[in-house]
């Protein structure tokens, strides 16, 4: 893995972590009060080993867990799901995670992830890390993204 990629993954991991901190999940998103907050990474977009740094951290008062999945069917839990746009349609249609909770923040890293039904698309603008938010999808999943965070977005899809 190129050094540039490592840096990018680390930056994106940090962005995802901080982004998640500025999103409000409904209480029904968690099975129990002590349920962990799960960051799920679906192969092949796993940001390498960068998410490992998140292990043991706490977010929204819960222990953060990082889980890696190889296929859609194996995704059982996840409050944040990082996946490719190609996987997104399958995830939305068939992922078992949605049997437990519809309140999953989907994050991808392609130019059209948000337009294809994803919620947050990590992208680059003029060599600067940026993000696009599909607020319609996020609100449909009852996720409330901090307005100030939205203000920082390169684009917000609202309709």
């Amino acid at each position: 893995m190129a050094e540039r990629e490592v840096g990018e993954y680390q930056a994106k991991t940090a962005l995802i972590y901080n982004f998640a901190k500025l999103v409000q999940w409904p209480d029904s998103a968690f099975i129990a009060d002590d349920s962990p907050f799960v960051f799920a990474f679906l192969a092949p977009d796993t940001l390498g080993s960068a998410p490992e740094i998140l292990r043991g951290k706490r977010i929204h008062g819960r222990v953060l867990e990082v889980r890696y999945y190889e296929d859609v069917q194996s995704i059982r839990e996840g409050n944040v799901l990082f996946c490719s746009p190609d996987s997104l349609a399958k995830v939305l249609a068939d992922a078992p995670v949605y049997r437990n909770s519809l309140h999953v923040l989907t994050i991808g890293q392609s130019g059209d992830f948000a337009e294809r039904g994803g919620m947050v698309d990590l992208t680059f603008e003029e060599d600067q890390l940026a993000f696009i938010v599909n607020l319609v999808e996020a609100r449909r999943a009852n996720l409330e993204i901090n307005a100030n965070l939205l203000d920082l977005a390169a684009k917000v899809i609202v309709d």
Partner: protein
Amino acid sequence: MFSVRDLPLARKLSLIVALTTVIGMAITSLASMVYQVFTFTNFMIVELGAVTEVLGKNGTAALRFQARRDAENTLSSLRAKDHISGAVLLNADGSILASYVRDDNKSIALPAVIKEGWEIDYQILTWTRHIHQDDDFIGTIYVESELDELYVQAAKSAVAMLFITLAAAALAFLLGFMFLRAVADPINNLIATANRVSKERDYSLRATKYADDDLGQLSVEFNQMLNEIELRDVEMERRVAQRTEELSRANSDLSGSLQEKVVLLKEIHHRVKNNLQVITSLLNLQARDIVDEGAQKLFINSQSRVQTMALIHERLYQSDNLSKVNFAEYIPALVDSLFSTYKTGSQEIDLQIDVEELMIELDQAIPCGLIVNELMSNALKYAFPEERSGTIVVQLHALEDNMLELNVSDNGIGLPEEVGLEANSTLGWQLLNILTRQMRGALEVLERRQGVHFRITFPLMLESTTKNMV
């Protein structure tokens, strides 16, 4: 009744300073309080304006993305500001995106027309600010603030100012009492000196000069005045002494002159008396050679009358008073003289003399003495013939209204029927009537059968009137 006017000067000055301080401090405090209220109000307006601006900026994204929770979170940050009672974040169409009310039991009454800017009344201050995003109007933030804090601040200021005013007044009174002694002490000293000068009449006292100020000048002037009074007194005493000496000298001269006149008068009376006695002696010598008994009696009568007048002058030069004769001394001497002149037999004639201490002027004394002489000599010659014994009474008393009463009586044989009392009967009677008239008196014969009793009443003449007597 208490009166500021009667207070001591130092106390009065202290009171004036304290009152002036209180009034000054009260005006200053009031102005300061008004200024503070004005400043605090401005501060509240500016602060609330800043708050609305921050809220507007923070609420921009919430408005833009219609993030109600974020909007509410943004507004809930106002809980840190106790005086802010509520706020509303309005969308561009006027609908409420989020609101905040400190007291859940209250609600916010938005104005009918929302105008940008601040408004204030007695209860609340409101700030309204429109929110724009890239020149697009996206909403409005409206914030309400209660003015309780303003009133509390004003009340605190008032209490603080009151305490400061009272403390300043007390301090001013105390310091005034201490420092104003510099003014009061010279004046008190001046008053004390003036009081002592007034009470003790001691013009050698001087007021103390404390400093070269107005009061010091007043003390100098006061002392100068005392100097002048003292000098004037000395001059006056000198003049009085000089005048007294002059008067004393004049008095001494007058006394000497008077003494000379007294000596002269005494000498005159003495010489008159001596001359009258010479006449008496001549009449006596002449009478011895007269064979005719009747003529001899006439000589003796004349001798007796001259002797009566001589006795008056003798009394005058022997006494201290050269113009009046004391009849209490004169009558006994006269009676003795008459006794020695007329009593030739060996019969017992008792004399009873009752005369008051009466000082009679010379002009009245001579006729009065001559009257006594006439009546006594008659009694001695005719009342007790043939060696009969009896009593002759002479009385002279003062009556009311400045009148005198002379009584000459005897218990002899009385007046024979043939003896008339007419004014022209005998020389004796003529004399009696003339002398009584001369004294402006009245002659009465109270008894003529069993002895004789004459009473003459006459007014006591004063010096001025006696000189006019004829």
